[in-house]
């Protein structure tokens, strides 16, 4: 199964600065493992120490948040597009 993966700017140093990659796998978990094999270090950026996808990382399969699909067990079809989207948040000092 071949899918496209969109890589956000902060992770592109790990993928030779490629913003989009082809990857293979039957599920999202397999695709992310495939990426780690080819671009070591990417797993550490996506997963916490407990092996769970970081909460600061959003993953979409064809514009659908995987939290509303089957998470990493989401089954993929040929040509699917996976997007990794960093959480963007922050704010000023607490107002008290």
């Amino acid at each position, binding site marked *: 199964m071949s899918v496209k993966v*969109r890589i*956000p*700017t*902060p992770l*592109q*140093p790990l993928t030779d600065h490629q*913003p*989009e990659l082809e990857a293979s796998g039957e599920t999202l978990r397999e695709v992310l493992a495939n990426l780690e094999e080819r671009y070591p270090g990417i797993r550490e950026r996506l997963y916490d120490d407990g092996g769970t996808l970081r909460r*600061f990382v*959003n993953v*979409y399969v064809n*514009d659908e*948040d995987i939290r509303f699909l089957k998470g990493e067990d989401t089954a993929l079809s040929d040509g699917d597009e996976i*997007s990794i*989207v*960093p*959480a*963007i*948040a*922050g*704010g*000023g*000092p*607490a*107002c008290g």
Partner: protein
Amino acid sequence: MTGGNEQGRIARERPAARTSTGAVVVLTAAQRSQLVEHARNAYPEECCGILIGVRGNSSVVCSVHAARNREAVRTRDRYEIDPRQILKLDHAADSEGREIIGFYHSHPDHPPVPSPTDGEFAWQGYIYLIVAVTEGGETELRAWSYEEEQRRFRECPIELSDGPCSTRTGACRQSSALRR
């Protein structure tokens, strides 16, 4: 919001500290006004948005896109951009040969300096513009990038340059080369 006094209507950009070596951020006066007006209109709540552009020796802003603050409770000192909006703009930018180069948000009644919360969520590789805004409408804009290894922000100089994005990219690269 009642609008500021005449002095307050003029956005002030503080020159970056001499020690700053962050990438230069280039934007037009119109884009600066867009950011500043968004911050004023949102006051006393925080505003946020997305910067589309191109990166070379400098980060050149091609367009500024206001985003909805997804933070529902602490809207005066927190923001979160809907990742779906980021995704949508990423596709649109990619089709034009551009990319998301960073984000902006406001600090109502606080300096335009990254807060601990900003650091908690920061990613290396993006530009973070922060607009300080007061009740009187006074604003100050500063730019930052994040260094993951040192876990600190570095200030980036802001350059104002008008003209189409493609032209500014060339001009910007040239001026960066001259600066060496």
